[in-house]
């Protein structure tokens, strides 16, 4: 169902592009042409191109074109498909053993053929505490048999990752996990050659070797990153000869460059800022070039359940009745839908128009909020203490969204002070226990499985950390954890979704660690010579479909 929707959108986008092309140029063919250099404007450098370390959309946008994993998503859908694997793996032992066949003839860009050994090496390196990547110490991959002993440096290899022969890899899990194949398809699962890592020393990020359609040609930090077409690529070759990432280009400048033809894409991994969206959406040349796709994200206020005044459930429930979600979306030009739950469209498990508290069309019930605050003991004689709202400043929109929240709470007599921080500072302060009471957060899918919206952000293991936590409310409910464990291994898809809906009810109807607000529509735009640019439901940027008018 949901795959169907995405593909339909892809078709719509393509036909719009064709129409636009026919309207503006005379000698255009609809047949893709090879050749040319695509210019992409980026504000910041990718943090790293080491797949074991990178965990942000900018890095992934580049990495996706350099490396491959065993599995990928079919076209522009969320349906898993084999990539370096010959076929989908066979699953045995009650869902605990996965056997992958590695495709023959797949070569790294250094010319050597990929074997099952390379996957064992790459995955162990990625999970090795010495690599200092984010997957070390548990998270998604912690369920592989023997991984915990490996994290604790008790053993040199993970017993659950076995090389049967040069083309067969077997993975054993401690317990069945329905999202394990999605995990395998994450960039952390990309394969890299051991000899290239040894040759690069500590600098594999700048000397990456992979199997992907492109290779890194040059990277001057803060200026330019160049990808060149990989002649050894095992899949369908890309149309583009080269991709130049112009770095250090602010969004305002980037979109001007796009209109002048100096850039073809602008920071495709993040949503278009409101100002540029309004401008380009009313420009006849560019209006039709905007592509849209559900972002599969949820934006919410996190209330730290261990900190006053949010340790009182009545207060948290009261806060759930205050935010005007229509106004939030208006700041974003209506690019999104109100969401009172925790799953995002079109994720399986998302319930459209979910409204467990019976809120009005703006997501509010101010009378209820006031009554709950009174019940919690706040009133004229005991005013509600002023709260800092911590948020990440990305652009003018961030301040405007926060200001709108401030105004909403004024209506129930609560003072909110705005505290905008840089994104790294924001992650740091909200991920530490007892540091932030109230914060404005977004969660974007890692992979299209509902477990990704529970396990990393709403479970006890995510709350029980000393730093870099994803559970900003530090919310922990044993009953929810039990349901999450059960759902993770449940092979019956219908039953499994019921469990996730039960979890959603616990969060949004009973415990209130969040004020869920909305899910956004991702928008992006390409320059006039670009064809077949589309948003992928999982990857921040896919370059292989793109071709340029005349191949130049």
């Amino acid at each position, binding site marked *: 169902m949901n795959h169907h929707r995405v593909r339909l959108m892809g078709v719509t986008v393509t036909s719009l592009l064709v129409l636009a092309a026919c309207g503006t140029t005379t000698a255009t063919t609809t047949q893709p042409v090879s050749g040319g250099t695509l210019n992409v404007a980026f504000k910041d450098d990718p943090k790293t191109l080491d797949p074991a370390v990178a965990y942000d959309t900018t890095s992934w946008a580049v990495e996706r074109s350099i490396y491959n994993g065993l599995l990928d998503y079919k076209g522009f859908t969320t349906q898993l498909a084999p990539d370096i694997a010959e076929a989908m793996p066979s699953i045995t032992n009650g869902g605990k053993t996965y056997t992958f066949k590695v495709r023959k003839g797949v070569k790294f860009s250094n010319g050597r053929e990929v074997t099952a050994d390379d996957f064992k090496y790459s995955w162990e390196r990625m999970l090795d505490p010495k690599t200092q990547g984010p997957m070390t110490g548990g998270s998604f991959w912690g369920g592989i048999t023997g991984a915990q002993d490996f994290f604790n440096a008790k053993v040199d290899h993970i017993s659950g990752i076995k090389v049967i022969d040069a083309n067969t890899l077997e993975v054993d899990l401690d317990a069945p996990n329905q999202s394990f194949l999605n995990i395998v398809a994450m960039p952390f699962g990309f394969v890299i050659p051991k000899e290239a890592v040894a040759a690069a020393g500590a600098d594999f990020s700048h000397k990456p070797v992979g199997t992907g359609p492109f290779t890194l040609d040059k990277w001057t930090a803060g200026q330019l990153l160049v990808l060149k077409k990989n002649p050894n690529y095992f899949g369908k070759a890309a149309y583009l000869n080269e991709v130049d990432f112009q770095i250090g280009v602010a969004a305002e400048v980037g979109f001007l460059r796009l209109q002048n033809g100096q850039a073809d894409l602008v920071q495709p991994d993040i949503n278009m800022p409101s100002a540029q969206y309004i401008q380009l959406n009313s420009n006849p040349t560019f209006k039709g070039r905007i592509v849209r796709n559900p972002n599969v994200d949820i934006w919410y206020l996190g209330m730290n359940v261990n900190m006053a005044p949010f340790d009182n459930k009545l207060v948290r429930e009261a806060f759930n009745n205050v935010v*005007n979600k229509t106004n939030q979306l208006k700041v974003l030009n*209506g690019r999104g839908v109100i969401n009172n739950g925790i799953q995002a469209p079109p994720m399986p498990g998302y319930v459209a128009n979910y409204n467990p508290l019976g809120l009005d069309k703006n997501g509010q019930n101010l009378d209820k909020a006031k009554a709950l605050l009174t019940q919690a003991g706040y009133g004229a004689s005991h005013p509600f203490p002023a709260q800092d709202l911590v948020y990440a400043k990305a*652009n003018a929109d961030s301040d405007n969204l926060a200001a709108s929240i401030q105004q909403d709470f004024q209506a129930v007599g609560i003072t909110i002070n705005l505290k*905008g921080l840089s994104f790294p500072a924001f992650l740091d302060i909200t991920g530490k226990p007892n540091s932030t009471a109230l914060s404005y957060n977004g969660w974007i899918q890692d992979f299209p499985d509902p477990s990704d919206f529970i396990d990393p952000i709403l479970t006890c293991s995510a709350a029980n950390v000393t730093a870099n936590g994803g559970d900003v409310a530090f919310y922990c409910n044993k009953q929810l954890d039990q349901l999450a464990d059960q759902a993770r291994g449940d092979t019956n898809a219908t039953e499994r979704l019921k469990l996730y809906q039960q979890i959603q009810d616990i969060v949004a109807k009973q415990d209130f660690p969040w004020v869920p607000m909305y899910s956004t529509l991702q928008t992006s735009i390409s320059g006039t010579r670009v064809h077949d640019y589309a948003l992928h439901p999982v990857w921040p940027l896919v370059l292989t479909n793109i071709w340029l008018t005349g191949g130049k």
Partner: protein
Amino acid sequence: MESRRVSTWLPIWYRFRRDRLALCGSAFIILLLLMAILAPLLPIRNPNHGYYELLPADGRPLAPGSAFLLGSDAVGRDLLSRIIWGARVSLFIGFVANGLALVVGLCVGILAGYFGKWVDMILMRFTDVMMAFPVLLFSIALIAILQRGGNVLVIAGVIALFYWTAVARIVRGQVLSLREKEFIEAARSGGGRPSRILLRHILPHLVPVLIVYGTIGIATSISTESILSFIGIGVQPPTADWGKMVSDGQAFLLVAPWLVIFPGLMILFTVLAFNLVGDGLRDALDPRQRALHRGVLGGVSAGGQALASVVRPGMEAESA
């Protein structure tokens, strides 16, 4: 007594009012002050309230027109109200920062100039060190360390911290030359205590310098405050502030240019007005200097030199 005061100040006023530009500047400042002080009483909208319901569905800022006289921003706030309320922040910081800078600069300059020797040495070397700091960089660092981004008093204090040095230098120069004058010599040989000599005999001679610098310094402080807010470390949202409004509006430059133009013009006119008034006062307080200005190539008198130097440090500070 009364007649003597009149004879000192009236000619200055006569000279000042001949300067049309300075008069225009004064009128603008008075209007601005009235607007700022009376803002809560004026029949205008709440500057921090977003009238989302008036915005179109795509959240586009409303152009100047019947709904909002000067237009609205992207969250439906009234630009006119925000400009009027923004005057309060800008003027408050301008006056407080410059007041602090004047007081500190005066104390340091007077002590260094009058006592000379090691006092002068220590105070002026310290002043030199402070002058060597890149103002913006250190303001950013200081405000970050203090963790008080939104506090107007902290912002005023930080601005003052860097701008008292110019005042100290000028005052010291003046005091150095005054110290050698006969009437000071006479007071000293008459057995006058240093504190009495400083307050009764030297301070009154510094008043013209302080008035001129005080006026021009306000312009410098206001523009610095706008810059700090523009780069996001000054006044915090949603407080209306001209610098912040320009900063927020620049993203919308192609869609809603009024968001940048109106607050930008307010900064421009305000800084210009204070500079014009300062210039006019300088000319009015020292007619000899004015004569020199009028294109005589002749030698510069000692007094003229001192007053001429009033402007230069101010310019330096502005371009820093």
